[in-house]
């Protein structure tokens, strides 16, 4: 399989160097795969940090900047960063107001963040953690106990980051993050597998006329394999599972996200969004904002996920607050 790389083992290192070259407002901590805002630690502000395996770009470092993340740790492709690097990130971003770690629910990520939080606490840093588990597709997966954390995580970054930028203390920032976790659901699907740099071939086999419903973001199995369907049918399947789980009432407001898995053109994502909005409309649910794009990818996988976040006045204000990052910009 062709790839635009030099050598598999250098992918993360070279990607991070290139990213800093493109975004000089970011800084790489020496000897690590951690990027931070150039002005970190930001005086008087709670730090919001995240991290996880690489291969999900623009997640995680793409959300570094004003109004979102202060630090982002990159593991090897689809592999958790190590706890010592997470600890360095926590130390480097803490301005004395404490640090909130946004963690996706994978065993490796959770254990490494737990260990890092303990190491940081030994150094006197106040650390809180929220675990995102928005994927309605599976209860236990190859990498998880409980539900997986997927694209809904971006809403957590946005809201917690905005709360911290507005001067919220660690308790308030954590509470906002938990509120988003409680109110966001996601389900994804794949048209093709993805190819990791190390393996160089598809991580699973999917026939020419098959799709995988309930796919995770590492190519791990979903809930069912089905024959190819139309965009409308696929959108209906994903959206109905998400809405059933979220138990929305008529008249409630939501923010939606159609997220590309990395190999799907934007035109197709808009087609999915068209159907998503019509389903919501039929159910009397109001869309306050609709996001469409590649927010949390799975290398070169073709496919998408649909996320729905129930919003109230507080979350709307936080989602609408300014943010300036490589992956997401919101202006007033």
């Amino acid at each position: 399989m062709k790839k635009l790389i030099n050598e598999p083992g250098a992918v993360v290192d070279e990607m991070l160097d290139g990213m800093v070259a493109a975004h000089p407002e970011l800084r790489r901590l020496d000897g690590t795969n951690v990027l931070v805002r150039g002005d970190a630690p930001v005086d008087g502000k709670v730090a919001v940090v995240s991290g996880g395996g690489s291969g999900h770009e623009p997640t995680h470092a793409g959300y570094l900047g004003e109004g979102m993340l202060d630090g982002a740790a990159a593991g090897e492709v689809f592999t958790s960063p190590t706890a010592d690097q997470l600890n360095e990130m926590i130390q480097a971003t803490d301005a004395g107001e404490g640090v909130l770690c946004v963690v996706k629910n994978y065993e490796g990520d959770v254990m490494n963040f737990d260990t890092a939080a303990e190491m940081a606490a030994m150094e006197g840093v106040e650390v809180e953690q929220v675990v995102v588990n928005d994927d309605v597709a599976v209860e236990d997966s190859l990498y998880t106990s409980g539900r997986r954390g997927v694209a809904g995580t971006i809403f957590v970054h946005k809201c917690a980051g905005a709360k911290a930028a507005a001067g919220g203390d660690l308790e308030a920032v954590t509470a906002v993050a938990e509120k988003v976790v409680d109110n966001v659901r996601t389900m994804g699907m794949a048209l093709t597998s993805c190819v990791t740099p190390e393996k160089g071939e598809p991580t699973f086999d999917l026939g020419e006329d098959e799709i995988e419903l309930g796919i995770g973001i590492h190519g791990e199995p979903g809930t069912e394999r089905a024959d190819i369907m139309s965009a409308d049918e696929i959108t209906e399947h994903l959206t109905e599972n998400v809405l059933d789980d979220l138990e929305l009432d008529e008249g409630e407001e939501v923010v939606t996200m159609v997220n590309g898995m990395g190999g799907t053109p934007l035109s197709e994502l808009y087609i999915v969004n068209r159907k998503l909005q019509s389903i919501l409309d039929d159910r009397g649910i109001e869309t306050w904002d609709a996001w469409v794009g590649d927010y949390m990818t799975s290398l070169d996988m073709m496919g998408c996920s649909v996320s729905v976040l129930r919003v109230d006045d507080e979350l709307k204000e936080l989602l609408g607050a300014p943010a300036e990052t490589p992956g997401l910009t919101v202006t007033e």
Partner: protein
Amino acid sequence: MADAETQREAVLDALDNVAERLAEEKEYLTDLDSAIGDADHGANMERGFGKAADKRDEFAEMEPNEVVKNVGTTLISNVGGASGPLYGGSIMFASQELEGGITAETSVAFAEAYLDKVKDRGGAQVGAKTMVDALVPAVHTYKKSIEQDDLPPLEALAKAVDAAERGVAFTVPIKAMKGRASFLDWRSVGHQDPGATSTLFILEELLETAEEYLDGEVDRDARAEDAVGRAE
């Protein structure tokens, strides 16, 4: 209690012995992990403990508890995946119990803290087919031997190793409930858990090292018979 320098030497020798043993057993651990995991346990453990053993010079001036702590942080950085936090994080955390030096009493506290942290972090209880199945019998036996039976540490450690060995055997016929093997469900039955196995290897090397420092040798055969209650 031996002086701090002797304690440090003992810790460093134990580290060498463990690193050497895990390197020897790399293929075996990989084979066990291939059957029910992702086939990286052997390489991960060899790399992690190898890196720690390479730091012998760096550790040469440290207090014994500091050496233990740094072994933990080195494992965290180098073992990777979930094993880094489980083995390294737990050693790092438990090293606090050795601040006053290594005695029979603090070694029990260390063992208990290590076990608690592994259970807490990994969320596994006995019977889930994990390293906990080797650790629980080892730590409980060690504590009881020291605190209630007043046995010398060397004998207590020998009994703990036997207990761990039976714990490893116990992982074979049971179904995995935690970790990656749990997704195999019933297919995991009949396979020995790699984490419990590497835990046993580490304990065996601690015993080897203790025999050198605590002046004594335990007759393994007699010990084994005693352990399974066949001596009577």
